[in-house]
């Protein structure tokens, strides 16, 4: 019968495990949007969020000029169109690695609330597009007073 050396488990292994679990727990509790696993999403992928006043649609669109973006709201449909342009002449350089994609895109989504189309604003900062759509007054909750008869 062969002898197998008994490996004493490193007590620190357990600690890193706990650390990982804790970090996962914090991620779970934080308000940051996180999604696991990908379904085929249209480009650009979006996050829709809302608070009492507005609906926000955010999209990560790195490397696009604000002038190449076209945002439209018709009734409750938001359309984001644009083009990610190649800023250099690919014939003049030799690529060693290519992961980033270029091209035109268009995407429409139905908004969860009626919005005030006149007050829609959009900003583009650090490659993230944020469209703020204030909800229309008629879709805000309204207290109904019961009249005494």
């Amino acid at each position, binding site marked *: 019968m062969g002898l197998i050396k008994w490996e004493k488990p490193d007590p620190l292994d357990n600690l890193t495990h706990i650390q990982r679990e804790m970090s996962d727990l914090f*991620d779970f509790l934080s308000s*940051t949007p996180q*999604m696991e696993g990908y379904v085929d999403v249209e480009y650009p992928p*979006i*996050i829709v969020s809302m608070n009492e006043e507005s609906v926000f649609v955010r999209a990560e669109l790195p*490397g696009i000029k604000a002038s190449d973006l076209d945002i439209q709201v018709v009734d409750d449909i938001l359309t984001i169109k644009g083009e990610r342009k190649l800023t250099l002449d690919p014939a003049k350089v030799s690529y*060693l*690695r290519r*992961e980033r994609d270029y091209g035109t895109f268009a995407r429409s989504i139905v908004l969860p609330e009626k919005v005030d189309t006149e007050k829609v604003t959009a900003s583009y900062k650090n490659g993230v597009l944020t469209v703020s759509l204030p909800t229309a007054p008629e879709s805000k909750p309204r207290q109904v007073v019961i009249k005494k008869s």
Partner: protein
Amino acid sequence: MEKKELPTVVKKKISSDRCVVTGKGNWYFPLSDIYETPDNFTILIDMPGASIENINIDLQDNELVVNGEVSQEAYTDEKVIYNEYNIGHYHRHFVISDAVNRDKIEAKMSDGVLSLILPKAAHVKPRKIEVKAE
């Protein structure tokens, strides 16, 4: 003119089974392009959401380490109702050779894209050799 419909984007998460991830938040591998011109190498990295102040670039021996932290404060008083992408910090590292002039590496950030310009060292640059007339 060549036009491709619908660019694609995949955010690869840096999983904790491959390396130990400490601190709050998730980390992702940003997508990058690397190309070469006669004078330099350029690395373009997509880091949407990371502002200039939160980008750290370190050169340790042969390794160029790029970290970008993304603030997630905007969502604190909003309720997310539909979600198609993850938000997290970015980390990527590149091994560079002697062909790069390390003292002159430049970095620029615009619209969420970090460009690193790595000038070539003198000994690898194309050099024209003149023929002397006798």
